[in-house]
């Protein structure tokens, strides 16, 4: 591309940006009480157009430079899974070498000199998302079922523990298996009618189910207390020894048991290790079940359903197990979330959470356990780090999702090609390159 061509292309992009910016950026609405007031701010359009112009020019220059470096005359294809780049090579080894390193780091983290309250707290949040990502990975990555309402199971787990603890005085450890069981039951109830359908219908039904759960939690005020949420959920104890400075009569507090000075960080570190163990159980479970017949059946089903049927695998039951197991881990994570926060409300379980968890699985490279850790860390730390620009952080979050997908559609650390179809054949849903 010559410089003049680039200029023209960038000019066109800037023109489109200016027209797009005209209504929404060019005018500012003012609340006057009566009819909506309006004020022009055309300089915003100029900012938008100029930044798009410069950005597009830089992008085109970069593409040309890249093509020159690659020595390939054809236009840059964003999806070329055959080309082994550095990340793909890392990805193929990630689960073997990267995972032990990550686990060692996670275990050592609270003892690091820089690990204060905030760091451990943040790490706990990351681990919750890692666990959710690993749980959803069973459904999406292994079984190939698109679940857009995973947060519903997370909510079921959280509310199960909260209600059991509030109404029947259950402790965290007693309620944990029940929360998983309950979430799995919900998974089966939902999955049974819809798993026989085609994949995309499953997406919309799970999305609808996520909304239904949220609406029910909001409106069934007698039980869930509606939008006020449930407060005063029992905090976890160290196997019966509470984390309080002054325990009730007859109880021994954690710090007394070990003869330590009381510090509120004990509980935070304990919570961190609890979620670490829960997440590692999820990981271990996934790694092992992949090698069992049922795990093999999931992956086979993802690749070719018809071949599976021909081999005598019952697709509905196989999918149902994946769905239920994924839901169960969501339930575990949910009940941990409830005990950590001490307060839950339907607001924590909106669609955006499901989208974030799905994005973690896909960005990480579906099926790659280590990739999910990296994606979870990236997607949870990005909004945290950008907290000063709170208005812009979700904007950046959405843009990052789009850009990463364009850059690496197969995910950050995919160690296998997502489909094994011939590239010349159109896939039934995605379509080939014309």
């Amino acid at each position, binding site marked *: 591309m010559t410089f003049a061509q680039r200029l023209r292309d960038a000019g066109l992009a800037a023109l489109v940006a200016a027209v797009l910016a005209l209504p*929404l950026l060019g005018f500012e609405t003012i609340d006057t009480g009566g009819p909506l007031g309006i004020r022009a701010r055309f300089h915003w359009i100029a900012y938008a157009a100029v930044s798009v112009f410069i950005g597009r020019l830089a992008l085109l220059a970069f593409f040309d430079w890249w093509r020159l470096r690659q020595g390939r005359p054809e236009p840059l294809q964003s999806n070329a899974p055959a080309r082994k780049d550095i990340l793909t090579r890392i990805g193929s080894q990630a689960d073997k070498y990267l995972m032990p390193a990550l686990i060692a780091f996670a275990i050592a983290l609270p003892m690091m000199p820089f690990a204060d309250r905030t760091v451990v707290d943040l790490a706990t949040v990351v681990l919750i998302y890692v666990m959710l990502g690993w749980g959803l990975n069973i459904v999406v990555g292994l079984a190939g079922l698109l679940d857009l309402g995973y947060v519903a199971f997370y909510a079921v787990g959280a509310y199960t523990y909260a209600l059991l603890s509030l109404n029947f005085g259950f402790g965290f450890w007693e309620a944990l298996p029940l929360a998983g069981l309950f979430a799995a039951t919900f998974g089966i109830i939902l999955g049974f009618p819809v798993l026989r359908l085609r994949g995309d219908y499953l997406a919309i039904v799970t999305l609808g189910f996520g909304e239904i759960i949220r609406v029910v939690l909001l409106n069934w005020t007698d039980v869930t207390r509606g939008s006020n949420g449930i407060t005063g959920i029992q905090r976890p104890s160290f196997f019966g020894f509470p984390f309080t400075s002054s325990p009730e009569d007859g109880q021994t507090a954690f710090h007394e048991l070990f003869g330590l000075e009381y510090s509120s960080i004990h509980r935070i570190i304990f919570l961190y290790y609890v979620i670490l163990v829960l997440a590692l159980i999820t990981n271990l479970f996934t790694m092992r079940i992949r090698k069992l017949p049922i795990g093999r059946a999931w992956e086979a089903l993802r690749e070719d*359903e018809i071949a599976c049927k021909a081999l005598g695998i019952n697709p509905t039951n196989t999918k149902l197990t994946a769905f239920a197991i994924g839901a169960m881990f969501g339930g575990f994570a949910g009940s941990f979330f409830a005990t950590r926060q001490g307060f839950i409300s339907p607001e924590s379980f909106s669609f955006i959470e499901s989208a974030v968890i799905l994005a973690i699985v896909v960005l990480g490279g579906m099926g790659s356990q280590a990739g999910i850790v990296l994606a979870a860390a990236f997607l949870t730390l990005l909004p945290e780090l950008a907290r000063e620009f709170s*208005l812009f952080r979700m904007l950046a979050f959405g843009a990052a999702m789009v850009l990463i*997908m364009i850059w690496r559609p197969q995910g950050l650390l995919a160690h296998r090609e*997502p489909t094994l179809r011939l590239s010349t054949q159109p896939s039934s849903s995605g379509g080939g390159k014309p």
Partner: protein
Amino acid sequence: MEYFLQQLINGVTLGAVYALIAIGYTMVYGIIGMINFAHGEIYMIGAFIAVISFAVLGVVGITWVPLALLIVLIVSMLLTGLYGWTVERIAYRPLRGSFRLAPLISAIGMSIFLQNYVQIAQGARIKPLQPMVRGGIELMKGETFTVTLSYLQIIIIVVTVLLMAGFSWLIAATPLGRAQRACEQDRIMAALLGVNTDRTISLTFVLGAMLAAVAGLMTTLYYGVVDFYIGFLAGLKAFTAAVLGGIGSLPGAMLGGMLIGLIEAFWAAYFSSEYKDVAAFSILVIVLIFRPTGLLGRPEVEKV
């Protein structure tokens, strides 16, 4: 009886709006097999452009309602269409041919981006719009209840019917419609036979966005308020409508939209308005159990 009739009218009005949005989903799904998650936000942007255009017209001094409506309709259709085109160009075209979930994630990202873009640009508070079309026809006068068909409802239903008729004609009888149907059946073959598939797909997005813009304008007039969050639920329901009618089928989207609108109106009227969304989804699940391809969808032949 009067009450029933009134709910029927309300339901049809609501259904018309859902049907307009659902067409955008079903066409995109038909042509590239992808759930265009950002479509609900496109509808929201259409509604915002309509509100802002009304305010600008108010400042300029065009207050004759039919003229103002016409101008706003055209402006919001054009600008929203451009938004649809840009979204496709940036977020979906580079991903064509990659695996199935990639465009979906990109679409979810785009949806989050657009929602926050509008929130930043125009603020999070709801934008009111003064009622422009008042009055209506009293159809039936009962003892306690009067059935009215407002002029606004007439406008919404008439515009929707006209657009749908025009749209069906466009798909059935114009070169663009032929190209679209060809791409839907076999994109590679269509490309070999000289159909510009990229352009056809782009135009599909533009047309879908234009219809969503009309829906946005209509709901703005009907409810009188807009905020940056309306796209999510409307998009969800319209997509439900498209699936209910059989995704990929144009008459199916219209039928599904109508049904969802009616279910919602009647459920809210006779049972509880809090659970009207739950009702719509439950009906969807029940229909899918008995007719897995939706009401008017064709069964897909699976090939090895």
